[in-house]
């Protein structure tokens, strides 16, 4: 077992784990009536964490000095299982799972479970700590998001759980080749052969066992994934693009035994997105011809995608091909207007990856998978299960996946 104290007291280095004592599991649901301000943008998690954790405006965030944090400026030299653990010197990190599952009777469900880590002060700030710091003293906050989409029941439920990375409330633990990321009662456990996800709230819970069907995929340049103009506008990013999944989901008092396929991302970075990016669309698709696709679109105010937008194509054997912005073309076919936030989100797309002869349309499987947060819905985004159909290399193809759409709701304005 790797034993380390409070994450922030470590010499910061990629691959070192954030180690917290004590396990964490179970779930918590935050009463929506209360000023719950914590929600996330997966792609702009920086904003999430700051915006959600604060009521601060965007400019202040953007100008905030990033000095003192470790930053991603080149290849990440990822090694496993160590790098499944935390990278506490970086400001932002997340472990992200989505999947499409069904019962034996073909009733379909989508789910997501994400645990974010956020460092709230650069490591150097630790010098201002008292001589013998309290066990509660930490610079790490952990935030969990869970959602379940019941396609047939046209229902989308979500919850969150937040805790400081101290006194066993939340953290990342590594031992015997296993990595456990936990926040309160929720946990993500990554072992050599399988992953386990546990989250429970009053409304719903999930308990899933996942087995990789393909090896780890390193995005960009060996995991170094560019997100903007400068070298430091980047993250370290890898995925399990296909995980055989079995387990159960409980909705209220109903329990469903499910099987299906999941996707896992693990990403960490420090640099914020550059100014002038108004939002972010992200797709993960698992096609029935055995190929998986990830596309990452950085949206500019004029609607044009920033050239740093990119993607990855994973073939049946698990080999990955990096896609640059010029390799694919995504256009919106239809939109959906949220009755909650009044925001208009794209709801159908065509995705063409010319070089690989992929031409598919992508549709949301349930229009309303919007995540509304806070009493005034300051931070609102769409995260949901999608369905794809079209052709790949001339043959008909279908697939399922997840999409994340940020920066459409008024909440984005609040951040500017």
């Amino acid at each position, binding site marked *: 077992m790797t034993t380390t104290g409070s994450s922030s007291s470590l010499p910061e280095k990629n691959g070192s784990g954030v180690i917290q004592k*004590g*396990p*964490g*599991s*179970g779930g*918590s*649901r*935050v*009463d929506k009536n*209360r*000023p*719950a*301000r914590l929600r996330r943008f997966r792609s702009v998690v920086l904003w999430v964490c700051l915006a959600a*954790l*604060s*009521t*601060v405006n965007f400019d*202040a*965030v953007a100008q*905030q000095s990033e000095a003192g944090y470790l930053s991603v400026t080149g290849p990440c030299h990822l090694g496993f299982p160590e790098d499944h653990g935390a990278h506490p010197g970086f400001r932002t990190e997340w472990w992200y799972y989505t999947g499409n599952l069904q019962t034996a009777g073909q009733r379909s469900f989508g789910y997501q479970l994400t645990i974010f880590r956020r460092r*709230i*002060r650069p490591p150097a*700030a630790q010098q*201002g*700590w*008292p001589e*013998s*710091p*309290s*066990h*509660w*003293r*930490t*610079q790490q*906050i952990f935030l969990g998001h869970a959602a379940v989409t019941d396609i047939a029941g046209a229902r989308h439920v979500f919850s969150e759980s*937040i*805790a*400081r990375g*101290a*006194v*066993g*409330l939340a953290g990342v633990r590594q031992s015997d080749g296993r990595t456990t990321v936990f926040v*309160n*009662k929720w946990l993500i456990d990554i072992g050599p052969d399988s992953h386990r996800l546990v989250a429970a709230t*009053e409304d719903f819970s999930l308990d899933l066992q996942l087995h990789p069907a393909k090896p780890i995929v390193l995005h960009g340049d060996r995991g170094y994934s560019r997100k903007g103009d400068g070298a430091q506008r980047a993250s370290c990013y890898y995925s399990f693009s296909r995980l055989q999944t079995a387990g159960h989901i409980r909705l209220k008092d109903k329990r469903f035994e499910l099987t299906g396929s999941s996707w896992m991302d693990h990403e960490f970075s420090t640099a914020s997105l550059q100014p002038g990016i108004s939002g972010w669309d992200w797709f993960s698709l698992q096609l029935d011809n055995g190929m998986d696709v990830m596309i990452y679109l950085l949206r500019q105010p004029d609607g044009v995608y920033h050239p740093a937008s990119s993607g990855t194509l994973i073939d049946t054997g698990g080999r990955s091909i990096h896609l640059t912005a010029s390799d694919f073309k995504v256009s919106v076919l239809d939109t959906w207007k949220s009755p909650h936030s009044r925001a208009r989100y794209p709801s159908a797309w065509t995705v063409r990856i010319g070089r690989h002869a992929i031409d598919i349309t992508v549709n949301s499987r349930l229009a309303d998978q919007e995540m509304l947060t806070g009493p005034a819905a300051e931070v609102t985004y769409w995260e949901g299960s999608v369905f794809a159909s079209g052709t790949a290399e001339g043959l008909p193809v279908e697939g399922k996946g997840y999409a994340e759409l940020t920066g459409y709701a008024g909440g984005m304005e609040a951040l500017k």
Partner: protein
Amino acid sequence: MRPIALFFRLFVWFSWRHFMKHRVRALIVVAGIALGASVFTSVRLSVHASLNSFTKSIDLITGRSDAVLSLPGGRVPEDLLPAVLQQPEVSHASALMTTYVKAAGDEMEPFLLIGFDPLSDRPFRDWEAQRGTAGSDSPWLGLMADPFTVLLSEPLARRHGWQAGDNLTLAHDRDHAIFRVLGILKPEGLGLAEGGRVALTDVATFQEFSGLHGVVDRIDLKLTAAVSPVSLEELGRQWADLLPEGLQITSPSEAGESGRSMIRAYQLNLSILSFASLFVGMFLVYSLVALNAASRRHELAVMRATGASPGLVFALFLTEGVLLGAGGWLAAIPLSGLLVSYMLRGVSQTISTLFVRVHVDTVFLQPWEVLLSFGVTLLISLLAAVQPAREAMLVEAGEALTTARLQRSRKDSAGKMAGVSLALIGAAVPLSRLPAVAGIPLAGYVAILSLFVGFAMLAPWGLQRFGATVSPMLNRLAGVPATLAGRYVRDSGTRTAISVGALITAVSLFTALVIMVHSFRETVQLWVHQTVSGDLFVAGKLSAVNHFRDPAPERLRKGLLRLTASVEPVRSRRFGLKTGNFDYELDLLDLGSFLRHGRFVWVDGNPKALQSRLIDGEGVLISEVFANRTGLEVGDRYVAQVEHFAVELPVLGIVRDYRTRGGVVFYDRAAFTMRYADPSWSTVRLFFRQRPEDFDAALTALRREIIDRCGSHLEMVAGEELRAAILRIFDETFTVTFVLLLIALSIAALGITTTLAVQVLERLPQFNTMIAVGAAVEQVRSMVFWEALLLITAGEIAGLMCGFLLSYLLIYVVNVQSFGWSFIYSVNWKALAASLPLIVGTALLAALPAIRLIFRQPPAILLRDR
């Protein structure tokens, strides 16, 4: 509807116009009632405000938790938090720590510092910061991110002029540190706790500041709906393996219950006391309505002759009473407003001194309280009017026919009334023996009322006897006018006599309170000098305001080991414990050393025989309050959970103790160390082994030595100063009581003025007849003066007797049942001897206007008028 309209028409014609004609009389009565009602209302509102603020503060700090994990007398290991969070029964858990701190430069007022985890606490407690916080982070993120930051409640910040971004120094019992103000709380949720005198900080900062690493005061739990209802006891059994020995799961509703019940008892006490003012006002109503009934006898007969039913006459006079009551109550509204602001301070100070710390800023006008005061005032006035209304009703229609009516030879009911009144006074004895109902000395209060009523009803018979006895003596001593006055007193009849009841009530209240407060003070003084003995008291800073719950700072403990040999230390550690809903303290002190220099004030047990057993740790001493609240007696076993230890010891004796919250259990510190564990100590008092020749110099030297060895972050009070301070605070707490008393006395004075004035007016023809048969004007005046003197003296004698009985009730029944303490009965003869003639003098002054009424008009006019 019509009969009612008709009735009011008649009331206006007959009664209202009569009131208007004699409006000064009516206004005096209304003023008396108004005073009584406003005292009653303002006292209740003031105590209610304290109760409200206490409850609200407790509720705000308790938040929405379903259960609370705590360790009696100690703290909970923080590791327990993630452990209980994993239990299926628990949906949320949050740790909380609190302590009173002071800001540098503000030695007077400590405020509550709350340490918590802003993230896990969110489901439990609401709070929000105002805009314009320091830094770019949200305030709760800032609390976590930056060590030694605080959020201040708005009143606290305003009071000190603190703003976001300021630095301020806060002191705790161990240390002081500089905090940065992150922001100001909105006046809602936690921002309102403690009357808006709170600061919030991150639990990490709290631990680093206080040095309390690894522990928290308590863990609040929210339980899963799916698992509940599980009883908390059952939950405790299920978690037996999880929870360390001694840890308790309690319901948050228990928090503050003992404080609340103390305040309620105090409220009831003051209510009864202030009710006395209303009761005195009742005599005023009685005398005016009775006067109307008597002086309008002929009109009543005409009314009856013209067809008015007796019921109608009765209703008219009853309505007069109600009208006076309602008028008094209306006039009381602005008066209460004035009084309440004065009372508020006194009342909340008393509650803070005697029971629990409260912070009160505002009074809320409670509809229930307004209704209550209206109802009580009206009822009192109605009751006061019943007897005169009955008299009026009995006026026969035939009287209308005769101009000069023969004096009805109605058998005076004085004797019959005396019988009833003796029965009432006698009833006080069995009533005082009854136990309290739900902590309220209900029977005791009924006994007080029956004493008041009994003595008032005894007045006619008493005056008869008194007049008959003194008039022959007066003849020799003071001549004819005095003799005539004596005769008048003898024959004055029920109406005059009952008016004396007002004086009896006020004087008895005065006597009883003088005796009670004196006994209380004498006893406290004895306690202060024997039990709160010591030449110098030393503790960590703010240790006292935090109830000495934590061991003293190490530097202090070590430094005191090396003190000069000329002083003997008595070290003490206190644990705040609970039995049922009753909060008390376990005081572990060096009994051997203590008993060499100080003593307990014993209620039960033999001090000499027990001394060695106490020092050997064979058992505990319990305070009287503790004994009365728990029912424990000498020989019973005291059982308690103290941190991780189950303590069970025999009760050796019962002693008096008057510290806040009153319940104390004393046990030897060394014995506790031997049997259980070293509790270390939180406060120490030092005794000079031999009284130094130059005491002040020795004390100064001792202080200097302590500062040299232990540093200056401590509190030192000289024993003399401490004892003086306790007595001063004690005296301050009774100002409210004496204000109530003064008002009751002034209402009684009003009563004397009206009664005598009315008597004079009624008898003007008689006076003229006296003049006609050769009396000098001065002789008539002298006669009236003697009447007043005799009535007042009689009232005072009866009041004194009633007061002594009342003081027994207050000391041995009401105080014991309300607060659990009694006092050594002690009469302040000097104060009584000085003040009673003063009351006679004041009452005579009140009689002056009546005497001056005589012959204000030439006698001839009066004769012709008749």
